[in-house]
């Protein structure tokens, strides 16, 4: 069963709600190795997205994703604004004008989003950024999307968590955390954490679709 615009909007809504719940936790992570605003930033952006979501539903999942991306770029700021904004923008572009998406098309769009994030932020693996959760999650989807959709989504969320945790002991080399050098080791990356929440939300919202 293909994924519709309302399905995707529901996943984004769930992501926004989870971000609101995790706002303070994300901010605390950012206080330790950044400037203490990641939860605030993401929540501000998704409050704006959720407020406008009903008006984003007219033109298919691609238009939805693009509008989410633009809204994030216009409201989040900081590093995460352009990065998540680009992620959703590129997803939207990849989706084109399709009215519904097969899972494999969604996965391809996620890959395009990831490429956009990498292009914009120039993070390489193990720089300890959101990319370290995003890439394994999407790779997991890519290998499992042919099988059970629910399991594919579960493995993506799991891979995001593992990626997030795998880089916790590392020295950050991008973003503000990089200023800390050795002192960044042992701290969980806020952006990798919010990305993990994204893939958990995709699982929880979309696993029941097909």
């Amino acid at each position, binding site marked *: 069963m293909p994924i519709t615009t309302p399905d995707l909007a529901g996943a984004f809504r769930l992501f926004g709600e989870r971000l609101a719940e995790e706002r303070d936790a994300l901010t605390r992570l950012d206080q330790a190795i950044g400037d203490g605003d990641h939860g605030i930033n993401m929540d501000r952006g998704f409050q704006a997205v959720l407020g406008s979501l009903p008006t984003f539903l007219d033109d298919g999942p691609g238009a939805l994703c693009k509008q989410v991306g633009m809204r994030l770029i*216009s409201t989040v700021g900081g590093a995460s604004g352009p990065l998540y904004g680009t992620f959703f923008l590129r997803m939207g572009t990849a989706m084109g004008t399709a009215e519904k998406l097969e899972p494999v098309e969604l996965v391809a769009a996620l890959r395009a989003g990831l490429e956009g994030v990498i292009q914009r932020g120039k993070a390489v693996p193990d720089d300890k950024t959101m990319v370290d959760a995003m890439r394994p999650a999407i790779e997991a989807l890519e290998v499992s999307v042919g099988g059970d959709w629910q399991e594919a989504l579960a493995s993506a969320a799991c891979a995001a968590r593992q990626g997030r945790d795998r880089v916790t002991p590392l020295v950050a080399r991008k973003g503000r955390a990089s200023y800390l050098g050795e002192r960044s080791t042992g701290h969980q990356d806020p952006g990798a954490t919010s990305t993990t929440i994204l893939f958990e939300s995709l699982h929880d919202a979309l696993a029941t679709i097909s």
Partner: protein
Amino acid sequence: MKKLINLPDRVVEEALAGMVAAHGDLLRLEEPNVLVRRDAPHQGRVGVISGGGSGHEPMHGGFVGRGMLDAACAGAVFTSPVPDQMLAATKAVDGGAGVLHIIKNYTGDIMNFELAAELAQAEGTEVASVVIADDVAVQDSLYTAGRRGVGGTVLAEKIVGAAAEEGADLQAVKALCQRVQDNARSMGMALTSCTVPAAGTPTFELSDDEMEIGIGIHGEPGRRRVKLASADEIADMLVAPILEEGVFARGDSVLAFVNGMGGTPLIELYVVYRKVDEILRARGIEIARNLVGSYITSLEMAGTSVTLLKLDDEMTRYWDAPVHTPALRWGV
């Protein structure tokens, strides 16, 4: 959290409203949260804009006016502004001679300014940009986010703003800004943390006998945490790594900028300045110009930073040129 604020989410908007109420002769406010020089744009002149997260006041909005910035974009507290703001600022100050973006080197600032520049250029405005990265506390490396932009930004905005005011073209203004960047070095420290209003709790905790050396301006932890020391020792810890850079040599003329982080009173800054002056004097470096005060802050953080800028005649002349902004004013 003890602050003179109303709702944490409204701090930036309300402070901007206060600024415009107080300085309506110099500034106007444009959507979204952009302070624009009242009489901008100036036909035929390069526009100079900057911007960044809020919480560093008077930077940048306090530097909008004659002979300094044409516009400043105010992000959320410690969060880079969004591209819509830099785009609006760029358009508001575009007098047909191009616009310079002065960007502090933070991942977020870089990316948001980049997006805005792409959009502005697509709309036909010529944009040049210079990234300020003067904080010696951070290792300079191609493989990381690199050095932060801190105190040197204030000096760059003053000097470059004066050049634009006098009619220098975009290439000249950009080259001058780059020269200020290349000749400026800074180092900061904190006695206390600060609290992002929307977070409500201090970004880090320092015990009564500790301080952070090599702090940034966003409450991000510093290079190392050490035992509290005297003002003279602290001045040494800040100036030594700056001098190790090899930029400043015996016989040089410098501008020395002793900055307060927001919660440190002026009396203490002068105690620090006294020692900075003594250290440089002993090295045969002449302080030809100075600036002492809280100009690039980190909310209510207590602490100080030292910036040295190696001056040449052109920079000195532009530093001395008339400036009339809420926070810096002379010659007019």
